[in-house]
């Protein structure tokens, strides 16, 4: 399952899973876009409904309709990509989330990071943006000794880092939970002594519950990531802090 081993182009299982997720994701939406008609069918209706969720519930909700319009494509893209990479964690035979290894979360976080920085700089200029984000107005000046370093860490380090770690940790923990539950189930049911088989049922039930939870988490983390994208953009470009 590993190609180009020990090179920078190494393709292991997780990369393959990502390829599959991307392929499915893009095929669904490209076909949807190709066949898109003015009067939507069921398939197109479902796609439009999910796109509309990103537009109204994430972009317009956080950024307002005027600013939000500009960032709808980015936010929608981030939401759907992360969702498709997350959901592979609960799809049989893939069984691992594309986002449960750090590379992909890093790329997404960097994208968001550079986007909100560049949008802030574009709007206020470099100095203006720094002043805007590091010296928020409306506080007495001595507070800046405390506030500015915190804001600096926040803007330049913590925001992207938390984006990466939140997503990675959630998906990895979910994967470990599922793997543990099902591995334990198979061990207890097929290899352990008779008395322990009952525990196999318990671990299977737990695995089933975690499976459902993981479906929810896949959706939730995609939502959290994209809503934070919207929030960071909003903080960068809004007039007041």
């Amino acid at each position, binding site marked *: 399952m590993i190609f*180009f081993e020990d*090179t*920078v*182009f*190494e*393709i*292991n*299982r*997780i*990369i393959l899973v*990502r*390829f599959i997720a*991307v392929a499915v*994701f*893009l095929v669904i*939406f*490209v076909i*949807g*876009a*190709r066949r*898109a*008609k*003015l009067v939507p069918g069921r398939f197109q209706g479902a*796609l*439009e409904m999910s*796109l509309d969720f990103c537009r109204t519930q994430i972009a317009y909700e956080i950024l307002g309709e005027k600013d939000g319009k500009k960032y*709808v*494509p*980015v936010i*929608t*893209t981030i939401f*759907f*990509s992360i969702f498709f990479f997350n959901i592979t964690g609960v799809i*049989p*035979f893939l*069984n*691992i989330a594309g986002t449960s*290894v*750090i*590379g*992909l979360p*890093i*790329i*997404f976080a960097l*994208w968001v990071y550079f986007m909100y920085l560049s949008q802030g700089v574009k709007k206020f200029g470099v100095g203006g943006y720094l002043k805007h984000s590091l010296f928020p107005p409306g506080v007495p000046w001595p507070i800046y000794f405390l506030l500015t370093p915190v804001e600096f860490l926040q803007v330049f380090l913590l925001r992207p880092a938390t984006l990466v*770690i939140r997503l*990675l940790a959630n998906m*990895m923990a979910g*994967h*470990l939970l*599922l*793997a*543990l539950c*099902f*591995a334990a189930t*198979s061990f207890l049911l097929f290899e352990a002594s008779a008395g322990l088989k009952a525990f196999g049922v318990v671990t299977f039930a737990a695995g089933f519950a975690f499976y459902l939870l993981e479906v929810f988490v896949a959706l939730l983390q995609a939502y959290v990531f994209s809503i934070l994208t919207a929030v960071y953009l909003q903080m960068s470009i809004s007039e007041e802090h």
Partner: protein
Amino acid sequence: MIAAQLAAAAHSVAAATETEELNPLLPEWYDIIWSLVIVVVIYFVFMKYALPKFQALLDERTEKIEGGLQHAEAAQAEAAALRAEYEQQLADARTEAARIKEAARAEGGVIVTEAKAKASTEAARAVETAQRTIEAERQQAAVSLRADVGALATELASKIVGESLEDTARQSRVVDRFLADLEASTAATTAPNKEN
């Protein structure tokens, strides 16, 4: 299938523990590179191709709906205008009809008056003609009566008297006297008649 699942699960557990040993927060280069490739592909295919298509479609739909609404509004306004026009025309027609009726009534009145006048003159003329005729006939009757009565009376008298009245001079005198008497009495009786 179960075997495959198990193998996958076991493998992933192994992979997970392996990455954990490697510290999952430190990325491998191949991981970064492939992630970047994937995100770039998504960026171009989804964000630059598929999404604008959907957006264009949504805009088009909004436009169509708005266009339809405007069209409906225009149609409604047009219908209202037409209706107002019809009502106006109807009111005009009613006024016109009333006017015509009034004119006809007036004209009818005039005609009736004229007819009445004409009829009364006709009647007067007819009465006059009839009276003239009657008068003429009466005159004629009087003349012929006078002649007949004269002859008859003479004849009668001559028969009664015999030959005594042969003398023409006497005869003529007697007749004239008789007629004058007769005429006087006739005039006395017909005069009130003529007054009528």
